[in-house]
């Protein structure tokens, strides 16, 4: 009891006698957060896949959240706790749509769905969820075992930064080769390094905001991006044929009851899309702008679009070239309505086109890209 008083009194004394700006509030917060974090070791170590990553504890008996990375593709996961203990863990369930996995610590002699008997410090996910979404400009902290700097009882690397934006990464903001399509927190610290996936993004006070994601590159701007998946993440997708909203909170609450079923992601079949009736100038460049060269009579575009219009945006997404126009159209179907913005002279005109079935003999001769492999 006596021992515990001393540091607090000393700290108070320091604060009182020095300007407030010289204090270090992150010190205490990082101690508290570190207790709730684990280092995860699994498969990898080849082809650029590292065999280590980071996780956060979300229950006293050892449930862990991390990123659904290839590091988890093994039957034997090893966990290093903040106090140096080494334990085994297994994957309970993963949701590729969220890019998140739920793990649980395995205690010898106990089945995985039995209470483990552990009493660990943890982030209360349900309580954290009640706090408002962080905003651009909020100061944040990142905790992770990036580059495997820490093992056993060594603490995580702490970084400070700012929320740059709360936004979707796809579509008008760039091109990302990445399964998760929901909102993310973009941060201005370089948090997303090898092994950082599954780390914690917290506010200044150590309250959990999100899970640090993978290393991904925006192929439009050719820049790496640092982001975390927020606790309230929701993604609209399809389960088989039915529309379905996959939610992170539901994944966590059902997952901890061993009841969560990942969605059966539909196979996206690429087609020529719906028929619009525009033909563009010859596509001979990597980035030929889609200038309308000809309109098919009585087609959806024939009355609304004019020759020499430049198709600049579809449904608000920028169209950079004939190729990006075709790529976008492949996702459409006859019967759908698309909103075009075309440049006509110095103005942008908004035009709605209801797509039709392709007339016989008019189907584009451009080979379609290979359909992606069905999800595993």
């Amino acid at each position: 009891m006596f021992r515990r008083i001393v540091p607090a009194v000393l700290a108070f004394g320091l604060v009182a006698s020095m300007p407030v700006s010289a204090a270090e509030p992150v010190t205490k917060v990082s101690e508290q957060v570190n207790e709730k974090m684990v280092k995860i070791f699994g498969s990898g170590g080849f082809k650029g896949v590292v065999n280590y990553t980071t996780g956060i504890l979300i229950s006293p008996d050892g449930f862990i959240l991390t990123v659904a990375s290839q590091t988890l593709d093994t039957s034997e996961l090893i966990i290093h706790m903040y106090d140096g203990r080494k334990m085994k863990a297994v994957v309970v369930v993963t949701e590729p749509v969220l890019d998140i996995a739920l793990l649980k610590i395995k205690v010898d002699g106990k089945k995985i769905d039995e209470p483990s008997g552990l009493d660990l410090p943890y982030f209360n996910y349900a309580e954290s969820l009640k706090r408002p979404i962080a905003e651009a400009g909020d100061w944040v902290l990142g905790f992770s075992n990036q580059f495997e700097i820490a093992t056993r009882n060594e603490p995580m690397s702490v970084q400070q930064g700012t929320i740059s934006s709360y936004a979707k990464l796809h579509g008008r903001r760039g091109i990302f080769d990445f399964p998760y399509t929901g909102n993310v927190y973009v941060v201005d610290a370089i948090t997303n390094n090898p092994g950082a996936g599954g780390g914690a993004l917290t506010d200044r006070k150590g309250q959990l905001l999100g899970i640090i994601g993978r290393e991904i590159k925006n192929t439009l701007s050719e820049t790496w991006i640092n982001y975390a998946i927020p606790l309230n993440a929701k993604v609209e997708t399809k389960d088989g044929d039915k529309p379905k909203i996959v939610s992170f909170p539901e994944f966590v609450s059902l997952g901890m009851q061993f009841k969560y079923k990942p969605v059966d992601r539909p196979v996206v079949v690429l087609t020529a899309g719906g028929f619009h009736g525009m033909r563009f100038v010859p596509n001979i460049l990597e980035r030929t702008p889609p200038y309308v060269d000809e309109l098919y009579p009585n087609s959806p575009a024939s009355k609304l679009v004019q020759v020499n219009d430049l198709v600049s945006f579809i449904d608000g997404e920028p169209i950079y070239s004939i190729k990006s126009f075709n790529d976008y159209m492949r996702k459409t179907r006859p019967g759908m309505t698309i909103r075009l913005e075309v440049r006509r002279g110095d103005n942008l005109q908004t035009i709605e086109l209801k797509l039709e079935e392709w007339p016989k003999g008019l189907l584009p001769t451009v080979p379609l890209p290979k359909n992606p492999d069905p999800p595993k």
Partner: protein
Amino acid sequence: MLRSSLVALFAFASVGSTQDVNEANEQAMKAAIAKAAPWVVKIETAGGTGAVGAAGGPASVRKGVGPTSGVVVGADGFVISSAFNFANKPTDIFITVPGHPRQVAKIVANDTSRMLTLLKVDLKGLAVPAAFPKAEIKVGMWTLALGRALDNEDGKTPSVSRGIVSATDRIWGKLTQTDCKVSPINYGGPLVAVDGRVMGVLVPASPNGEGESAGVEWYDGGIGFAVPLDDINAILPRLKEGKELRRGMLGFNPKTPDELYNVPVIVGNVAPQSVAEKIGMKPNDKITTLDGKPVENFKDLMMLLGPKYDGDKITLTVERDGKTETFKDVTLGGISATISQPFLGILPMRDDPEPGVEVRYVYPKSPADIAGIQEGDRIMKFGPSAAPMLTPITTGRTQLSQIVRAAPLSLDFKVELKRKAGAKVEVVTLKLAALGEELPDKTPPKSSLERALGKEKKENDKELEVGFKYDLANKTTGRKYWMYLPDNYDKNKSYGVIVWLHDAGKGGKEREGKDVFKIWETYCDSANFILIGPQAKNGVDWVANETEELTQTIQQAIAGFTIDRSRVVVHGMGNGGSMAMYLAFNARDLIRAAVVSGAVLNGNAKDNLPNQPLSFYVVAGDKDPLIKEIKDTNEKLKAKKFPVIFRELKDFGKEYLDQKTLTEICNWLDALDRI
């Protein structure tokens, strides 16, 4: 119990008071973001030269094509942005000002000194930012870098990176440095102070490079730059008038150009027709002050001159013969673009060890023709009419070429000739002309006296392997290339080099190399050229940062052969052509000319330097969608007074060349050692 509650109280007190400070900062910054948000616009582009990371800039970072940012600077629709955002020459630009629908935007003018672009949209009554005074920007102040590429889901709030001012007056006094994460995500956006006023506009920059993408390799590295808004506001009137702003130059080289700090600035060469020449600066003048501020070394001068523009006025003092000379209200010039390459109008005979230069061919209506110089005459001496003695030509055409290139166009020159007929010695007087599009009207049959290695002829090495060789690789760099050494190679003749740079995606295919080889084989044999086809490092497309190693590969491939340094040429089409021009500008010790088809020059042309001459032959198809950009390329090269031949082919799109043009190119290549 009492004790533990005390602990809790103390802990609360210590944490509580510090958090208030951070909380206050955090809230102030969020208020600043909200205040600045309406000034930050989103810029989207379409078309353009796309992914030619190759020829523009440092290239581990490709030129992005995603959305970028800008700052409103005029209530009537003026927006300033980073020139980086338009480096790929987009055909269409759209700007979204917060609270307004997307608009078509036009480029009004560029500032190639600070790498800014001014744009205009058809909007009125826009909110204009308050500038944070440049003089009050201090190291350590909080800064916020705002951008629109990754803005928030609410559509209002821009993206934010928080940092501090790292330094002021960077890169010759032009930029403020910050440790905010600055990248294509916010280039063109504002650097905002914690009170919401705008300190500057974010740009990539590097002390080691020029061009719109120099410095991109530092993106997100904690080294970011912004052009102070005060400086931008000062030049806005000129930009709004559509004036292209360039760096202001005097036009001289210091005697010790590599010594920045330890020696005073002593004038070395004064460039012909430059501001320095016009105001009467002389070699060995010591520069002492600029605008009343002391100049103790070259760095001082660069810091004072760096922020100035073409057209700005300065006052300069120099020390000459112990006396101080003052040059008042000197109007700075643009980059020394006004220097044309001087031209006598002859082709010299090659591989001739005797003193003097034998005239192989005389260009009709050239200074040489007008002065009556004829084929077969031998030029023995050359020099200004006013000089007491003419310079004897003892080391052949290289020496004559150097003398002519360094000669001012305004002076009269005397040429001492030994006539072919009767070996009579005569002196003629002439004025040099500016080299332009001259082409010989015939191909003179004989080009070489076959004594390149001295008066005695030498035998070819026995192991010499002539012919087409595929699958070669440089031992140190590992770069692959193919090469054609003419079947009739003779080491007593000097050979030009044609370096073929493949188009994007075409490299590494034996077929491509063979196709090129078949087209050029006969010409290489008859006009004495070695053909070499290096492959892009990644096998697909060229990136700028392979220039040095590529140059090394070429140098080593031709080492050991008898090379005519005045006829080393890069050649390519499409992206290969863009890379050819980039290489020409960046390997100027080696490359003397570039022949390009369907290729766009990314960024600006470099200066025409008399001691490292470059010539260009630019081919465009009238059906090529890039025709406008290729025409711009021609204009940019001509603006720097490079000798350029531009040919627009009718009904041509992205094809290579037609026969007529190929023949003309062959004649032109053979005449690259023109004097």
